[in-house]
């Protein structure tokens, strides 16, 4: 029999890369989501146009093409990125574009009357956004953000395209070294599912904590 513990270790190494990509990609996606999502609601046309262009472009083209561009074409233009940086950039920008729509939708779904209460209390635009609108909108965004994070986790499996040794990639290596297809793939399916479950559990916990005493915000 082949050296399974060695190969399992290889897959776990890949799992580490997958986790790293997911975490760093999520952070970038979160930042982009707020920047672009709030940008779309800006009073200034130029900001709105820029945010819209970013969102439509990254939601419109496929993640494969984006990764490819970041990895193979940006260097030609003088931007040298490590594979990990390229992966985080591609995934983060892509998922961030989807997240931006979530941010915009949540902020817009906070009733007009909350904005009016802010005006009546003489809060400034940013004060109202920061203290009244965003805290409420955040709770609405959370579940979708959780889903987006899982989408990002799953999308990490395509980074093998840019020769990043993530979990799927390592499973393929194990497969070609051992000639066994079933075991490595079954292993990573379970690992992916465990990670996805961890994400949804975390988001649910966070949601419950934030929603405490706040029934009625969401109807």
């Amino acid at each position: 029999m082949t050296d399974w513990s060695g190969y399992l270790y290889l897959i776990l190494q890949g799992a580490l890369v997958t986790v790293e990509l997911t975490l760093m990609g999520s952070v970038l996606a979160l930042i982009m989501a707020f920047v672009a999502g709030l940008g779309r609601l800006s009073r200034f046309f130029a900001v709105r146009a820029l945010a819209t262009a970013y969102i439509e472009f990254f939601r419109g083209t496929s993640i494969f093409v984006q990764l490819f561009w970041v990895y193979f074409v940006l260097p030609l233009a003088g931007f040298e990125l490590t594979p990990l940086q390229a992966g985080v950039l591609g995934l983060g920008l892509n998922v961030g574009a989807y997240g931006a729509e979530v941010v915009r939708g949540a902020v817009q779904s906070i009733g007009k009357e909350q904005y009016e209460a802010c005006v009546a209390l003489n809060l400034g635009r940013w004060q109202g956004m920061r203290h009244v609108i965003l805290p409420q909108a955040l709770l609405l965004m959370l579940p979708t953000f959780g889903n987006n994070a899982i989408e990002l986790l799953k999308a990490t499996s395509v980074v093998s395209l840019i020769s990043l040794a993530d979990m799927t990639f390592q499973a393929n290596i194990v497969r070609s070294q051992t000639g066994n297809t079933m075991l490595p793939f079954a292993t990573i399916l379970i690992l992916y599912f465990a990670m996805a479950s961890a994400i949804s559990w975390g988001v649910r916990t966070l949601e419950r904590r934030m929603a405490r005493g706040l029934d009625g915000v969401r109807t």
Partner: protein
Amino acid sequence: MSAPIIKIDSIAKSFGAFKVLDGLSMQVMPGEKLALIGPSGSGKTTILRILMTLERIDGGHIQIDGEHLYHMERNGQLLPADERHLTRMRQKIGMVFQLFNLFPHKCVLDNVTLAPMLTKGTPRAAAEKRAMELLDMVGMADKAKNMPAQLSGGQKQRVAIARALALSPKIMLFDEVTSALDPELVEEVLNVMRKLAAETDMTMLLVTHEMGFAHDFADRVLFFDRGRIVEEGKPDEIFRHPKQERTQAFLKKIIAAGHRV
């Protein structure tokens, strides 16, 4: 007699092609308690929202406390007001909404302290002290740490009143503050407002369908229809001896629907 605190001079307001207000003028004296009544859609809410700068006017002038609301004087010229001017003017005005519009993610106390701390830079301790006084006045001091979702409608509305008072406005606007409440809860809110009217010399504008309350509360009643003041006068005059046919018809309907006048 002193100068009016609110001076509305032939203002116009349309929503799309629909003219809600067309050349409306009125004045309110400092400390006056004014009730606006009239059928649904007659523009009562619109007037309050315009005073709170939640809607813009299409024409005319409004002066608050001697200063233009929607215009700034620069070198003798009247220019459209910018955000800074509006912010300064809004300090004079507070508003309480039909649906309370409390901030659901903040506890009662934070709802009241938020605006003074942010807009006036009041330190937390001072803001909380004042907030507790106000909450005490509306009978909500014991719920200071509750979240709005844990309150009844009447309690929410009392907190909303305290919140508006926290900025010490000279003018308070009330838009049907009891119409979303269960009948049993209406009274507690009206009691607070009676107390407020008796204890302060704030100017108050009240839109209501509670004719009985309007009668007791107001120094003067304006009856609106289709964006115009059809009739105005002392409550007794309006409610007991309406002169205009339209006013009579309206009051008759309201009475038939089971409301006391």
